[in-house]
């Protein structure tokens, strides 16, 4: 399982990559693997205001439709439009080409509620037991 060191993680298996005031958001390798072949993703609209841990997107695989929650609060500044035609990018490249959207996050302090890579790795290993 791939858990890049430069990202922050949620218990619901979303990741956030912080670049200045912008956070890139997606779902983890563990999440894409559990869901199986992803067939569709319903993304938020640019300009939408998100709250940390609130519903922001739906990801649909051959098995299920699952909700995705915002890792941080803030405003959506852009979405990965490639996913509409190529949802399999989430399976193939969950941390790079398969990102969901970008947001301008509004509360620095919220980052403390997220896990770093070693903590997330441990958390996922705990789930497997």
């Amino acid at each position: 399982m791939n858990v890049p060191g430069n990202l922050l993680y949620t218990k619901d298996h979303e990741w956030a990559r912080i670049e200045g005031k912008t956070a890139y958001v997606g779902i983890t390798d563990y999440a894409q693997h559990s869901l199986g072949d992803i067939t569709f993703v319903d993304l938020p609209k640019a300009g939408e205001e998100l709250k940390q841990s609130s519903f922001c997107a739906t990801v649909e695989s051959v098995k299920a439709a699952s909700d995705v929650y915002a890792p941080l609060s803030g405003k959506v500044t852009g979405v990965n439009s490639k996913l509409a035609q190529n949802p399999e990018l989430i399976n193939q490249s969950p941390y790079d080409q398969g990102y969901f959207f970008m947001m301008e996050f509004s509360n620095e302090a919220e980052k403390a509620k997220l896990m770093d890579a070693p903590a997330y790795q441990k958390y996922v290993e705990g789930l497997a037991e």
Partner: protein
Amino acid sequence: MNYVAHTKEDIQQMLSAIGAKSIEELFKDIPASLRAKSFNLPPAKSEFAVTQALSRLADKNATGLVNFVGAGFYDHFIPAAVDALSSRSEFYTAYTPYQPECSQGWLQAIYEYQSLICELTGLDVSNASLYDGGTALFEAMMMALRHTGRNKVILDSGINLIYRTMLYTYSSNLSIEFVEIPVVHGQSSREELYKYLDERTAAVIFQNPNFFGAVDDHSDMVEKVHQCGALAIASVYPVSLGILKTPGEMGFDIATGEGQSLGIPLSFGGPYLGFMAARTALARQMPGRIVGATVDSDGKRGFVLTLQTREQHIRREKATSNICSNEALCALRAAIFVSLLGRQGLIELAEHNYQKAEFAKETLSRIPGVQVKRSSPTFNEFTILLPRHANEVVHRMIEKGFACGFPLGRFYKGMDNYLLIAVTEKRTKEEIRRLADSLEAVL
């Protein structure tokens, strides 16, 4: 296997399994005051006596009237093959089967139905059917609300009042802002629509032909609706699509309608058939089942239920709908009906309806005191103005052997003297002439 439910032995077995001595003991927690002393039922009767009593009730109905009533439900001919094929035991069930993929024949029939609905409406995807025309329209409205994230809905008042009432009732606990725009000279009012259409509008809903029978080309309005980012929804009469511009051609996003006219007998309370078709982009918002074609591991063609992640057994509270029972048997009848007619047959059927209605307009307009409304083109239904209350006329015409039409005053204020008349392919010129003669006599 014993087909009599609850034999004494069954009851004893069940009681002993749960540790109760008697039925009395089982119900002892319910206070005596809350328990029925008796059900006030009449004494038992023999099967023959019951049949007689029910027949006497049925005889109170006026039957055998020559039917000129439409108002959303139409008296079309149903070829015998529709009954013969749809009543085959392999098909005779109201539902798509559980473990659906085991029933390839059924899935194929529904797939064919969906394909025919797409052809008829000129749209991309159809579901496996809904309960009736009204619920289909409600579901279409909900699709628009979800798709746009807005909550204002504009209704043309030419939509059947039954449907408008259903939209209000079903959504009474949701915060939807409804606007009704009036019908002017029988047509959807552009001016009124543009007054209310704005960036908060989720959907604009029309009916074509509208309740007064008027046919319209909504293309110009649909374009304006799209400019505001709203969806355009049409409730349509499928038989009319044999000759009229389709919802797809007019640019509509969703089309729904009552499928009764496609091989389903007129019957108070149904069962009827709601159909729905939409553009591909809205497929995931569509409620209910959708059958898809695929290939199996040997490369052979097969059918599956598809996009099930929208459905209530997977998405639970986030399902697109929880009232999406399909009407498999009625959908099958519609598929058989449309296939029997074929493309050319549907065109001819629509032409017959149109021409007979035009003949009826001509004939009725010669009656002194009767005014046929001609401000808009019509399909097989039109409005006439009588010199007296339409209800009285309808009652007198029953004595003459005619169900002569629908009194518009029932649904629209100030239209007490207006009568809505439908003429299907089943009505002969002779019947139309007799309708005119009788009408002249009772006025």
